[in-house]
């Protein structure tokens, strides 16, 4: 039930697939992957959360950091596939507005 993630690059789109739980315990594991995506100045990052079961505010913070830091160099971050508890959290924090732009 912990985290499982993978990055796939195709042309100028990177897909970051995150499954399982993204929370205070697992977000630190994702941090290097986020750092690398930002360092690589990817122009588009699609975060696929269709396998994500559970998120907490630390997990949201990790995704917001990816979004904000990518924006600095003009990179675009979108989130797809959120469902159940993660979708409820995104709606509550009005993240759907940001991430699906």
């Amino acid at each position, binding site marked *: *039930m912990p985290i499982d993630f993978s990055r796939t690059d195709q042309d100028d789109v990177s897909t970051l697939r995150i499954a399982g739980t993204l*929370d*205070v*315990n697992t977000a630190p594991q994702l941090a290097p992957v986020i750092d690398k995506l930002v360092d690589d100045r990817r122009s588009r990052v699609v975060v696929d959360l269709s396998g994500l*079961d*559970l998120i*907490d*505010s*630390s997990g*949201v*913070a990790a995704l*917001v*950091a990816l*979004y*904000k830091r990518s924006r600095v160099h003009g990179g675009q971050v979108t989130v797809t596939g959120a469902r*159940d*508890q993660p979708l*409820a*959290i995104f709606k*509550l*924090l*009005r993240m759907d507005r*940001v991430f699906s732009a």
Partner: protein
Amino acid sequence: MSAASVIRLTSPCSLRHRALAVRLVAEACRLARDEQAPRDERSAGYDLHDPFDTALVSAFGEIYNNIVLHAYGRREDATIEIVIDVGPGSLTLEIRDTGIAFDLGAVPEPDLDALPEGGMGLHIARAMLDEVAYEPGPPNLWRLTKRHESASPPPSTR
């Protein structure tokens, strides 16, 4: 609150012990729903499809994080007590810790338009539950309550 409906956990309070406490709350939510509705055998896993479970598990997770990080400052010998009262119309969590106390009323609401990277935990808990009460201690006491949707919806939805 009859003794035979109460579930009580005392556990070390650390990020390592977080999943154990969250699991217990998730299972209690499932129990609480069974009391309301006919047993839904397909959704008794950890999958948080039900909004009732989603609300309680999300809120509890945030309060738990805060106790580990803010009340105890990741202290090693920390413990937490969780009392779960599975009532007919609602589920109440009482959470006790012996870490530092704080002034809940003084915590500002986050400015969601600014895309904050912190300060969202208490907002999540308050928005998802019917009651989030805090009494500074020792022990500090959190009381989190979620009512079933079918049981007495808040006046604003009427």
